[in-house]
């Protein structure tokens, strides 16, 4: 791995684990066993590192979020569940850059560029969820009116953006797979009232997986 990539990788790990405000460029250099001067050669400070990490995040998540907008994830009834699996994919991606969400307001205030990018991501999330719900509506998996659908999509977007903060506040730290699974379950709980029996089974499976995860965690 190139030094530059290694700096990004190490920074992301430290930001996620220790928190972004608590991590200095000296910490990053120490962790990597390089001199602060060497780090400075690649990045002129923490701001540049954060900007680059966000750019990576935006690019990766945008790609993922564009997928259901371009083409339905489920071609017909046989693989409707792929839409739910997709939610895991999105949440896993977000979890990798969770430091951004740890003190979101602070970061958004410090970096106008990130603020704009974040806005784009939320719009894109909304569009992706809308596309998914619309497809499911057309495939008669969901039974809802247009107006309900818009409300549902907004609530799902809200959860998909802040579920992580919510989970942190409520449960403090939990293993990643539990946090992610709980997020998906929360999203499905919103869709559940509009689902037919077949997909309700999926929701129940999700619930029982969650229950056994909690048992294992204890």
């Amino acid at each position: 791995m190139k030094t530059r990539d290694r700096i990004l990788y190490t920074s992301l790990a430290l930001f996620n684990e220790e928190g972004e405000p608590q991590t200095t460029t000296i910490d990053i250099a120490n962790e990597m066993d390089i001199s602060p001067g060497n780090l400075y050669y690649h990045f002129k400070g923490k701001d540049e590192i954060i900007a680059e990490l966000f750019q990576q995040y935006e690019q990766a998540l945008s790609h993922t979020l564009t997928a259901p907008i371009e083409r339905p994830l489920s071609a017909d009834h046989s693989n409707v569940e792929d839409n739910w699996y997709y939610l895991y994919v999105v949440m896993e991606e977000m979890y990798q850059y969770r430091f951004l969400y740890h003190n979101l307001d602070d970061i958004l205030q410090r970096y106008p560029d990130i603020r704009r990018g974040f806005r784009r991501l939320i719009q894109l999330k909304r569009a992706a969820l809308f596309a998914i719900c619309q497809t499911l509506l057309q495939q008669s998996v969901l039974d809802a009116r247009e107006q309900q659908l818009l409300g549902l999509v907004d609530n799902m977007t809200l959860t998909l953006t802040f579920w992580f903060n919510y989970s942190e506040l409520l449960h403090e730290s939990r293993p990643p797979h539990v946090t992610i699974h709980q997020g998906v379950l929360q999203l499905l709980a919103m869709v559940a009232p509009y689902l037919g029996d077949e997909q309700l089974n999926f929701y129940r499976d999700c619930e029982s997986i969650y229950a056994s995860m909690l048992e294992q965690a204890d």
Partner: protein
Amino acid sequence: MGDEKSKVTDKAGEIAKNIWLAGVGAYGKAVEDAQGRLEKAGMEPPKLFKELVKAGTALEDDAREALESTAAARSSVEERINRVRENFHNQRPARIEDLNALHKKVDQLSRKVDRLTKALSEQGVAGGARGRKPAAAKAATKKSTTTTRKKAAARGKTTTRKR
């Protein structure tokens, strides 16, 4: 002036959103970039047209690149969905339907095994390897007309081809 600018921004935002919703993902960012460049270009009116053409060309490249990379990303999204599905199936409790499906599969498989064993033993007879499978050979000789033997040989061939 500030008011007019924000109107433009809102409109561009609206367009971007609509484009996203329409499904041509790659252009959303492009619109926003173009907006930034337009604002810059607005400072020097004579340059505007040149700037626009330049921005347009650059955007076309960006858009093409973005489209290409979304195609690559698409496959990786599918791959990741597959991984999650597998993981999920390993964790979820078995349902009656799953068990039934499993029974069906086992039945199918055992039928297939029976067929294969039969085909193999018949092939053994046709090839003259009598000593190796005496029981099967005996069963085959019971109805040893030339026609059935031919059929058996043909069947043996098709099964091997399938594998």
